[in-house]
């Protein structure tokens, strides 16, 4: 806090000074209002807002104090501006130079303050963006000038900050945009002036804490931390990244207040390149070295250092992420926390290493940082549940063109599915299923009508013999999607999947650390060895897989997080080999409540047939000697596939058309009919929902905005294939959905009932015997029945009868009631 040039100030003396100087301060305050408003460093920095309001009500540009903008830095002191030789006038900000058209421009730039102001005011008054879908503009009339509505908002809410989207400026006036990007520290104050004039003209009576500050964001110049280069210095940039560290609040002196100890004359000195020059002589009484720094009358601003790391998606493979230091000022302090993903708009700075007067040589390195003007959290929406435009990847025109060309091909679906994990042989339907999962259905929000969100994500379970490259498929998917998570059921706990509360070692605050499911929001969570997962862990999945949320009540933190994730799970049979005589449920021993939440369940079995073997062998051998070029080609495919999926997920939102709805209804009715003929339910509404999702995903693959009959056909086919594999009753050979929904096939249930009835009959035929021996009853039943009855069946029958309140089982005796 002390400057190297300041003289030590006794705290006692400075406290004594306060009453005297308070009055003086007010005088000076009014003086400063009379000065030009270009004076950016008014002394009003430290008064509390309430103390200001107590005075006469004031409004208008002149009445509202200017707040300093340390984020813009002090333009006139930038080292490259060599003012003193060329321009004797001390105030260089609006210095003039004879430019081509006899216009006044700011020194070193081509910015004319008047024109710039005018242009910006015109922009504010006229800019209309009818296609805007930003969440910030929610509730605004899109056909009215956007920023005028925002100004109105400011007058109501009283928060004097105007966020301006740079792309709006660009589309309105490209030249203004260029100036803004190239000379932000000159142009933004001009914008400030312009907006304040406009604002107080329109709302002359509104009272603001300080003058409105313009905060531009979404500068298109730089997107990536890695692409920052020396040309970006002192320009406005927008980069994305993740906060990894924030510092404590640092009070930074903006203006030092000196008072003469002899005559109490006071003077103010502004910070110049991080230093304060102590006045050696008092101007009033000419005493030398009589001025003392008064700390609590000096002006400070808040400052915070934030370290931002490149987000993992932006990085080339095999390199480590870059970090950048960011300084936040005033109200932007403490806006972000470590772990937040943010977009930063700011001015890129490079400061030479401090020259040490005692050394003749210096390190020839600059320190770089960004003075932040605007923060935008990209994952904020995860909490609000709004649309995911944060994930928007920028596609070049050509890229979009190639993608669209690809989409126009009739066999795009087959092409894409074969491009998926080419090293895994065949399994076409499984790949198609996963492809549809990658695209996902259309998100529907019925929360306004009280029906809540409908799940758009497709969940898939792969089960099968060990060594059928299930893990490999999972690994591939995990590598393909930007927000993929890969966990193994064996190693993960419920906590690791959901969220846990941790004490931050630095701040001692409790922090909610999110687990794999939350992290893969809008992505895919790949869970290997699903069957090895503990029951408590699995139970977490119930909520996630249907409601797509995650509720947490831990250590005083109660919240519901969004986990709109698709689950791709792989499970091994309980016996090391798949037993074709058993149902899926029996083979993998998973609760049917969970199984019914999977849209598609595939079996990956060894087909054991010669032609297949031959093709497989060919495929594998080719894998081992393919030339470099072929591999190169494939890599291209993976990149295209990635972009294709990303594009479809962001821009395509298919809706059902009439025929498709009809087709879906028919499909559902058909499915129900199959079962009703045999007296069982063969489809539930859940299956219909799955069909819709799959049809929508298939429409997305075609880049079509409408779900048509072809989509429904494919959805039906895929769904049927999956059911054929997983829900075939091994006893009858029929597809029986109840295996998955209730865990038991209809025939098995029927059988159970029969046994129970037989048992009941037998007991009744014995007449009045209140208690029977368990073992004897079992033997009797076995003797009576034609079919073999196992102990399990017998016990089930007993339980069924007990549920009917017909009997109770206590130990080894069975009692009638």
């Amino acid at each position: 806090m002390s400057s190297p040039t300041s003289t030590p100030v006794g705290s006692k003396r400075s406290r004594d000074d306060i009453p005297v100087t308070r009055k003086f301060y007010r005088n000076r305050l009014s003086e400063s209002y009379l000065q030009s408003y270009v004076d950016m460093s008014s002394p009003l920095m430290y008064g509390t807002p309430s103390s200001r309001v107590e005075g006469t009500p004031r409004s208008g540009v002149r009445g509202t104090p200017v707040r300093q903008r340390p984020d813009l830095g002090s333009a006139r002191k930038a080292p490259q501006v060599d003012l003193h030789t060329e321009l004797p006038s001390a105030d260089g900000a609006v210095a003039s130079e004879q430019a081509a058209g006899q216009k006044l421009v700011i020194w070193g730039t081509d910015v004319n303050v008047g024109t710039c102001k005018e242009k910006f005011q015109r922009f504010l008054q006229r800019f209309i963006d009818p296609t805007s879908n930003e969440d910030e503009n929610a509730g605004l009339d899109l056909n009215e000038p956007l920023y005028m509505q925002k100004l109105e908002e400011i007058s109501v809410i009283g928060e004097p900050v105007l966020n301006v989207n740079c792309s709006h400026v660009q589309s309105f006036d490209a030249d203004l945009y260029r100036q803004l990007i190239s000379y932000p520290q000159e142009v933004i104050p001009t914008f400030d002036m312009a907006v304040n004039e406009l604002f107080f003209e329109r709302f002359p009576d509104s009272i603001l804490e300080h003058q409105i500050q313009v905060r531009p964001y979404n500068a298109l110049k730089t997107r990536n931390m890695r692409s920052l280069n020396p040309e970006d210095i002192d320009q406005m940039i927008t980069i994305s990244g993740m906060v990894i560290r924030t510092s404590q609040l640092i009070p930074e002196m903006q203006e030092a207040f000196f008072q003469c100890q002899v005559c109490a004359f006071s003077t103010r000195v502004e910070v110049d390149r991080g230093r304060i020059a102590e006045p050696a002589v008092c101007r009033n009484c000419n005493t030398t070295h009589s001025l003392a720094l008064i700390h609590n009358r000096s002006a400070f601003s808040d400052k915070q250092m934030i370290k931002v790391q490149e987000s993992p998606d932006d990085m080339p493979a095999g390199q480590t992420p870059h970090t950048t230091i960011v300084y936040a000022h005033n109200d932007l302090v403490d806006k972000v926390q470590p772990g937040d993903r943010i977009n930063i708009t700011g001015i890129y700075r490079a400061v030479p290493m401090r020259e040490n007067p005692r050394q003749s040589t210096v390190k020839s390195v600059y320190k770089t940082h960004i003075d932040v003007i605007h923060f935008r959290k990209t994952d904020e929406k995860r909490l609000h549940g709004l649309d995911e435009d944060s994930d928007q990847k920028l596609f070049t025109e050509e890229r979009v063109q190639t993608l669209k060309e690809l989409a126009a091909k009739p066999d795009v679906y087959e092409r894409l599915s074969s491009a998926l994990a080419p090293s895994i042989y065949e399994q076409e339907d499984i790949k198609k299923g996963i492809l549809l999962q990658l695209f996902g259905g259309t998100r529907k929000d019925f929360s306004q009508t009280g029906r809540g969100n409908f799940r758009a994500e497709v969940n898939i379970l792969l089960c099968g013999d060990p060594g059928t490259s299930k893990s490999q498929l999972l690994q591939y998917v995990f590598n393909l999607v930007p927000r993929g998570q890969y966990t193994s059921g064996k190693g993960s706990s419920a906590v690791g999947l959901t969220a846990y509360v941790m004490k931050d070692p630095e701040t001692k605050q409790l922090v909610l650390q999110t687990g794999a499911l939350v992290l893969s929001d809008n992505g895919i969570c790949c869970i290997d060895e699903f069957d090895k997962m503990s029951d408590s862990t699995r139970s977490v999945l119930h909520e996630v897989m249907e409601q797509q949320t995650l509720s947490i009540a831990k250590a005083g933190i109660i919240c519901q997080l969004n986990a709109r994730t698709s689950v791709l799970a792989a499970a091994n049979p309980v016996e090391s080999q798949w037993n074709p005589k058993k149902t899926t449920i029996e083979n993998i021993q998973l609760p049917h409540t969970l199984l019914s939440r999977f849209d598609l369940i595939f079996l990956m079995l060894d087909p054991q047939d010669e032609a297949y073997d031959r093709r497989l062998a060919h495929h594998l051998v080719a894998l081992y000697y393919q030339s470099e070029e072929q591999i190169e080609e494939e890599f291209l495919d993976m990149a295209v596939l990635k972009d294709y999926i990303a594009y479809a997920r962001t821009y395509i939102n298919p809706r059902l058309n009439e025929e498709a709805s009809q087709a879906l209804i028919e499909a559902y009715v058909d499915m129900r009919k199959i079962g009703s003929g045999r007296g069982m339910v063969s489809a539930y509404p859940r299956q219909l929902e799955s069909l819709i999702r799959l049809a929508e995903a298939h429409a997305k693959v075609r880049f079509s905005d409408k779900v048509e009959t072809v989509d429904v056909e494919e959805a039906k086919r895929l769904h049927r294939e999956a059911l054929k594999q997983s829900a075939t009753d091994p006893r009858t050979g029929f597809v029986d959905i109840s295996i998955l929904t209730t865990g038991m096939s209809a025939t098995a249930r029927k059988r159970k009932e029969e046994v129970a009835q037989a048992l009941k009959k037998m007991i009744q035929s014995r007449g009045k015997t209140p208690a029977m021996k368990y073992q004897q009853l079992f033997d009797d039943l076995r003797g009576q029945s034609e079919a073999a009855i196992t102990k399990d069946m017998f016990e089930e029958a007993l339980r069924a009868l007990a549920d009917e309140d017909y009997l109770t089982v206590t130990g080894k005796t069975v009692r009638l009631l």
Partner: protein
Amino acid sequence: MRMWFVCRFCCPAAQSNSNPEWEAKVLEYFKGQLREKESHSWVPSLNDVPLHYLKPNSLVKFRCLVQDMFDPEFYMGVYETVDPSTKANVLRCGKYKDVTECGVDLNSRNTVTAERQTFYCVPIPGESPWAKEISFLSAARVVPSTSYVPSRQKRSYEEDDDDMDTQPQKQREPHTGGMGETPQIQPHGNGDSKRQETEAPSSQTTAPSDCSSHLDLNFPLPGERGPACLVKVYEGLDSFKLNDTLEIYGILSVNPVLTVLGEEKDPSLLLLNPTESMETPEEQRAHDPPASLVPRLHMLYARPLQHNNPLLPSAPTEDQSAFVSSFLVEMASVRAELLAYLTHVLLGDGLAAEYLLLHLISNVYTRRDVLPLGKFTLNLSGCPLNSYTERLYQIVQQLVPCSYRLSMSLHTMNSMRLVPKKDYVANRLVSGALQLARNTSLFLDETQLEQGQLDSSGVRNITALGNLISWQKVDYDFSYHQMEFPCNINVLVTSEGRSLLPSDCQVPLQPQVTPPNMEEYLTTIHMAQFTSQINKFRVYLSLARTLDYSISDEVTKAVEDDFVDMRKDDPQSVTAEDLHRMLVVARLLSLSLGQTTLSRDGWMRAKHIDMLRRSRTEQQKSLNGNEP
């Protein structure tokens, strides 16, 4: 000699600054010079020569691994200084330098800001002692005068500068006249050869920077020694990746100012300067360590190393292909000798020896989406206890240029850091034992594992090892997320029973001999080999790995037929996974014989040894009963 050109070359060009291509020319010049035969061996190596014998601002080379990549930094590419006496402005060049000259005019408009990046480089982890020794000796043979007499160091800077002025004239003549042929005759041989005699052994026994041991130099493996280096990279930033092994040619900078700047903590100066006060002391220590311990190297040129075997010609030139073709003739005989040697080592088990040989030449040659191809993790089960595995490692270490033995005791698994982790306070990547160079032999000794409980870090370590083996990748811990780094590490697991880690292939060891004294037995085997013989093995193993390989259509067909037939007999026993493994075995088997295409014989052989191996594991299973 040559190294002085650097200073001569840069400065005048920069001062005039008339020719913007001078930078490219400098690089061209050095690359051209280094391409000359043997010329790279004139350059002293940081690996071999203790730092204090190297002249600052001279050209040196460094064989290293990129351990961490720091943020890019902006520096003054061109700056203006004001001469205090004449008041004249002089333009100077800041490239390849850490510090500026006095009187920098920070407000000058001629300042050009340029970008460079710093890599933190460490010597190749786990480099075998023999590799170090041979490269040291070969360097010493060619350049007896690389290092300086200690007394020279005491001379003042001015004198050095004088030298620089006069030396080039002296040097250019012999250089054009073919200095390469007579490197012994150097103009200033003032006791160079003497120094060589006295210093060479000492630098072997005491590592170049002994004093560095108490400062954390962030070596991946514990117990490593050698200089770490901050390499400033100017060109081709994107072409470098983490964990690359490089031979870097650059200008050494050990300016004491670097240290002073870092050490100086004048509170009054720091307080108002926002940028400097922001760096934590840890960060400063990591990014600006004293130059005497971690020298700076301004890279002129870097050669990616395919291998670090000093016995092989390193540059991919025509003499390498000549070397390869001459060695190919010998290949089969060397293989037979090596196999015999390994059979002895593995207590007379020929099959295990065969597999060990294949394992030693395995290499991830490509990746198909997530699947690494060519990896061949071997699990030698049934290893005798006591110190057998340790001796086995020593023998492997004698054969490969890079290796590390990880004793998987419960304590090490729980306490050791295997996976590199980003330390955000110091802003550096804290290394772990799995940050290894390509083709490093990782020897996992599971016989050391005892009963007990693994804690969470132990479980993480085991998972990391499993990932390494199955996918050849390590997920570095960036605390908020993980980042995947592909690797290429040969993992050999020795265990009593079947290993708890996955492996591509398990071979139960069946000792044919039971020597009463294991130590003695292995030592005698080892001693019986001549160095020339061992050297042949070393060349063989490194070379076999680099050969190309292909499968003809005809053989492809045969393999397919074979697979179908095998499946017909018993579909349960032969799976796709088995075919994967057999294809790798066939590949390695062919390469080990110096054959670059798969022949029918090769395939049959591969099938045969795989069958032998399988029958052995079956046998083991039925013996133990409880094996899964």
